[in-house]
């Protein structure tokens, strides 16, 4: 089956959760023998693109939605433009498309248009895959930004309508969590499967681990915070760790990996300003790094933190933390989709700031049992492999059967 996979971000070098999920779906489908054409209609904020991707400037997108944090909706509005339609048409060519995988609802308008106007799309099946209920996520993101309530509501309504229409039209909806699945069904979806987010199996290189150890130093301890520049990551960080990181000792750090490194300062609450020197002496913002070094950092962390307090979908970083076999402190929101975390060792789920901090301190100052070799029994090891992509996306190997269900 020839499959078209559409998303609003490139997957050439997948870094954030959405990119990784799309890339992994593509890999599973390809491993099942399908031909997968991936096209990203993307903002220019990423660094690596494929030839099949279309970049859209912020100036262009700015014409569609004025509110911040709404580039995806703007892309949606822009997706029926000639530029986008002709780009997709050109990449797909004349051969017919059997299935269109639409990652998130944003590009549904363009698919709808193509089905009506492009013979290659005639009779194709639609799969709607999303790791969020987008209108809810957007509402949460915008509600505390001192924005006009009306304009926020307008955006939220627009996204909700988009999602409802897609749910009703899709032959299959791939949800990330059971809760999301129910939500999709309530929006009209008739055929929903749940494929939680997952992570790749980690394999830190010995040399890299050794280098990490040298850099960190003997007495230093660190908590690892991996996150994208997704605002709930930064908000959650300050909510759960507090305005002042003076509770950490001078030899304790938080190493931030990923896009969240760049937005932590912006999202710091006003009350944290007076503690700026203390806080940012403790926080080491690393930004984007190789997966090899990330694996080594995961392997050597005293604790991995997942402090996100809101936002939809399941958190890939949580899955990464589960898979790492290192101690984890996470919020309830971060554990969405991982209902079994209660059965894991050294995995604290906290709902309050003080609880979160205390748990972090416990692991930072406790005995350090480093090493990637699982120290847990078979049952727990088996639980931890459930978060890997090979397990979470296994259903999609036989997507055709799913579509016919």
């Amino acid at each position, binding site marked *: 089956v020839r499959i078209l996979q559409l998303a609003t971000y490139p997957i050439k070098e997948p*870094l954030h959760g959405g990119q990784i999920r799309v890339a992994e779906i593509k890999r599973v489908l390809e491993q099942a023998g399908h031909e997968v054409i991936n096209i990203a209609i993307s*903002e220019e*904020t*990423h*660094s690596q693109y494929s030839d099949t991707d279309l970049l859209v400037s*912020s100036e262009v*997108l*700015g014409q569609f*939605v004025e509110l*911040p*944090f*709404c*580039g*995806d909706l*703007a892309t949606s509005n822009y997706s029926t433009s000639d530029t986008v339609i002709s780009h997709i048409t050109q990449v797909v060519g004349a051969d017919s498309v059997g299935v269109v995988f639409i990652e998130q609802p944003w590009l549904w308008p363009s698919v709808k248009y193509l089905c009506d106007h492009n013979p290659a799309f005639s009779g194709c099946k639609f799969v709607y895959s999303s790791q969020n209920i987008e209108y809810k996520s957007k509402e949460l*993101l915008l509600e505390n930004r001192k924005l006009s309530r009306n304009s926020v509501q307008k955006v939220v309504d627009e996204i909700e309508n988009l999602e409802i229409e897609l749910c009703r039209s899709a032959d299959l909806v791939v949800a990330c969590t059971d809760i999301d699945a129910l939500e999709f069904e309530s929006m009209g979806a008739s055929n929903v499967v749940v494929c939680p987010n997952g992570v790749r199996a980690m394999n830190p*290189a010995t040399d*890299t681990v050794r280098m*990490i150890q040298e*850099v*960190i*130093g003997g*007495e*230093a301890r660190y908590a690892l915070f991996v996150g994208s*520049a997704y*605002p709930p990551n930064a908000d959650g960080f300050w909510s759960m760790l507090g305005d*002042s990181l*003076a*509770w*950490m*000792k*001078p*030899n304790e*750090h938080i*190493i931030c990996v990923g*896009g969240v*490194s*760049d*937005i932590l*300062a*912006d999202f710091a609450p006003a009350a944290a*300003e*007076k*503690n*700026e*020197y*203390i806080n*940012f*002496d403790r926080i*080491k*913002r*690393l*930004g*984007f*790094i*190789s997966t*090899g*070094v990330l694996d080594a*950092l995961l392997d050597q962390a005293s604790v991995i933190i997942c402090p996100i307090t809101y936002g939809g979908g399941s958190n890939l970083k949580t899955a990464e933390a589960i898979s790492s076999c290192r101690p984890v402190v996470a919020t309830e929101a971060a554990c969405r989709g991982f209902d079994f975390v209660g059965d894991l060792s050294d995995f604290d789920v906290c709902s309050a700031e003080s609880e979160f901090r205390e748990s972090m*301190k416990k692991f930072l100052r406790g005995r350090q049992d480093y090493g990637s070799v699982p120290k847990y029994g078979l049952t727990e090891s088996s639980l931890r492999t459930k978060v890997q992509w090979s397990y979470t996306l296994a259903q999609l190997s036989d997507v055709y059967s799913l579509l016919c269900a």
Partner: protein
Amino acid sequence: MSIISYAQNFEDVMLWRALKHVKCGFYIDVGANDPVIDSVTKLFYDSGWRGINVEPDEQWFLKLEAERPRDINLQCAAADYDGELNFYVLPNTGLSTSNKTIAERHEHERNYTKQIQTVSARTLTEICEQYNTSSIHFLKVDVEGAEKAVLDGLDLQMVRPWIVIVEATRPNSQEDDYVSWEPGLLSSNYKFVYFDGLNRFYLAAEHNELADCFNLPPNIWDDFVLYNMIKRGELGVQAVECFAVLQERQAQLDTCIEVANNRQDQLDNSRKLVEEKQGQLEASVKSAEDKQRQLVESQKIAHVNRGLAQRRRRLLVDVSTLLRWDRPVVGIVRAQLELVRYVFNRVPVSTFVAFNGERDCISIVSKEEVARLITKIDSCEYLAENEDESVTKGGLVVERLKSKLADGEELGVGSTSIRFLGLLYAKFIAPWLPIRVKFLLQMLRLGRFRELSRLALSKLINRRVVFGQTKGDGEEGSAEAYDDAGSIRKLNEVMCEPHALLAKKHPPLGFTPEDIYISIGLDWDHSNYPLLYKLKKTIGFKVVGAFYDAIPVVRPDLVQSSDFSKMFSNYIYMLVNMADSVFCISNFSKGQLEKIIDKDYECSPELRTIYLGDDLQVSDEYHEFPSRPHGERYALYVSTIEVRKNHQLLVDTWVRLWEKYGDAAPDLVLVGMIGWGVENTIHNLHKSGLLDKKIFIYSNVSDGELHNLYEKSLFCVFPSLMEGWGLGAVEALKYGKVCLISSCAALSEATQRLVPVLDEQSADVWVKKISEILDQPGYLEVLEGSVAKGFESKAWTQFATEFVEFVREEH
């Protein structure tokens, strides 16, 4: 066997001598009286005799009846006729008689009362006939003067008693009275044989063989004992019995006494025991006290040992602040100076250390250099050094300002002009606050600037974010971000601890794990705590720090620099994380630090409040004080001139005092460096026209001159908005001066609650209080009296001693 004589005058003895051979003889006792006492017949009755007792007195008769059952007891009077007669009874005596005359005489002479009884009268002859007495061995007649009638009533021819014994004297006298009746006896063939002084004995002629029995009076050969004696003996027996009882009682008493004694003994023993126990207890207490003393001694020894250990554990005293200080020492610098002086003089195993100007290296400062430093400060060399900087020796700080003003430079009205700020900063603030600039340079050197600039740039870069997806600093676009080598390099950069590198690059020579590093200076400006922290972690020495106040954190508005506030927060963070113990200058400050620690921090260094000293080190070698323009009556405020010190309130106050009192208002002398945030105050002061007229500002004042200023001041003021202690206020009290203070808790603590506390926000309140001082004679003296009475001064040496003890206790 001895006989018992009951008779009054041994009559029975004499009779017994004559008649003892007669068994069961017979007697007639006329006037028998008592059957025992004084009885002539009792001896015989007891010997088996019997007889007739004639006794008209019923009292005796009844007794006779009772005790002489064998006898014939007749209640009648023996007379010379049978019939009745009047009997005169004298109760309870043997003197009753039928003779009225005698009875009356007794009555008269002895105050007896006679009772007249009519009794039967019988002749002895008739009685003897009645009872057919065949043989009468003796007849005794004792009838108190009626003897003749008795004898007349006896026919001696018919009745022949062997022996007749008759009382022969008048009653109760020795006067013979036998003349009337003796002839009848003699004529009846009776022979007088014996007179015993009371009775006359007559022996019937037919028994003349008994006559010899009356040759001698009673004597020992009669072998008799007197009843009275026996009675006495009985009494004696009774007495003996009583005595025995007494003895028994005595014995009982003795027993009781013994018991009591035993008890007493027991008591004594108990007491002794108690005393012993008491002794033991006292011994125990003493022992406990001894042990306590031993413990104290042990502790002292331990303390000494610790001290010895301490001496082995060298004190590393940081002098970084002092080395860079070129102005009069006040507050924190004073504390550091005095500690350094103490350690220099009294702690042999000590070393002085300091950071270099760049604060990237710490090294040892020689003792010679420290000695020179102390001398330099004590001799006020900095004053001479600063002359080159146009700050005249003790001159007016604002001279230059004034000259600039005189040159026509304008001050902004209502707000400070940039030119004015520039002037202040360049001439006055910058020289004293070079650290701000140095800090930034230091950040650059230490890699911090990169972090700061990164933060700042990040905010600018992030402005590019329009639709919620941030790009960060563009690293995502860098190819090296995705390979391991590039990522490790990034990690190296981010995790880079320049202090760790410096610690490796410039390890302090000779530091050991046994050392105790002490730093109590302006460490946020002159020390490098991150580097020190690394060194401590590496080498293992102890660190003792100081906490003066949290003002930059608690009231950042008072330091007018958010950057400094953040830096100070970081300084406190490092201090409490690095120091093993921290000395605080007041309980107020200690409380502030405890709050900060409780709120956020995960460490608990030992905190101790040690009050600062208050004596000024006045050098004898520096007497010459510059001529000052202020008047003789002035109030003094010794404090850095900065917004926190609230000089503005004093300007407002003095403006009103000037309006109220004119020239009579006291001057206001402000001693201290000009710090930050006072541009408006200086401007207002200049505008008021009081500068150099009523209000004078002096800087670079030596301790000697300050001493002089304190002594001559009228009173002192300290209206500061926030303090950790308030050394200037304490020094004022040291000089016996009243210091009007603000309501800062630390100021009240420092001044021992001896001075008026005024609202630091209200000039009216200050004007009112100062007016009271000026207007009310004696009021100032009363306030000064409280200070003189209550203020407890503390020498700086004491402060340093306590500090070093604190260090030794804790380590």
